[in-house]
């Protein structure tokens, strides 16, 4: 059966992408705001729950501390998940292009 976090939600997807570099929680939110061109602004509880969840599944891990804040980064397993999601999305994108049935779009 498919993993219960797959396909990745927008929140989870952005967090994994942001954590390709080590960041603490609040910096994750700022990074996501930036890379989503201001369209995704995570709230505290959503970010907290998502980080806990991703950590529990071993897709991200704490790699150090900055003051009282934990710093996280994506794990090898998390990177594999991103690869899988990338090819899934590339396939969907390819369906948008070039198909004869949607010429009028």
């Amino acid at each position, binding site marked *: 059966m498919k993993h219960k976090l797959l396909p990745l*939600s927008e*929140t989870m997807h952005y967090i994994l992408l942001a954590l390709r570099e080590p960041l603490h*929680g609040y910096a994750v939110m700022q990074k996501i705001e930036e890379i989503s061109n201001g369209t995704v602004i995570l709230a505290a509880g959503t970010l907290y729950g998502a980080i806990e969840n991703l950590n529990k599944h071993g897709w991200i891990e704490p790699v150090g501390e900055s003051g009282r*804040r934990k710093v996280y980064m994506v794990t090898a397993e998390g990177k594999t998940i991103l690869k899988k999601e990338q090819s899934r999305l590339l396939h969907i994108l390819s369906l948008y292009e070039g198909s004869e049935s949607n010429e009028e779009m």
Partner: protein
Amino acid sequence: MKKCKLFFDIEKEEQWLNEQLQKGYRCTHISGLGIYTFEKTDKRNVMRLDYQDYLSKKKRDNYKVLYEDFGWNHIKGSWPGGIHYWQKEDGEQNDIFSDRQSRNNYYKRLMGYSSGLSIVLLLFSYMLFKDSGVYATEGLWSMEGVLFWKAFLFETPFALLKLIPVCMAVFYGVSYYKAYQKYSMLKEK
């Protein structure tokens, strides 16, 4: 200003607190006995209630630091698990949840909390009533006349006290049902 109030429904409590804040107050303290302390302020504040199960000391710190980074002030938490009260100045992001998945998980945690409390209270009530029923005096119902009324009146306050856990179980049962309704509404949409 102090106000005393008792809530069994976390969303009603949140709503009531925000009504007070809209009148130009901010909450400074909440005691376990349901005493809410407010003070006048010219800034607008909002309050959000979160529920968390048991968090270890480290996780709890982590949880608090993250919310504080977002501008939330921790007014009250419960140990080992329970409701956390967060207050912040009115701004662009006034919510603690920004997607459906996390809001859903919140309702799921609430359902676990209220059903758990409800079950514990029902078990407790069962233990209270198992041997004696609501009225404990032996032979109360076979007494007659003045003696019966005296014994009955004497006993009634105790009987009512024994009914409190059952009532509380019902209230928590109702809030379980409400959280369940919200949860399934979010699922369907």
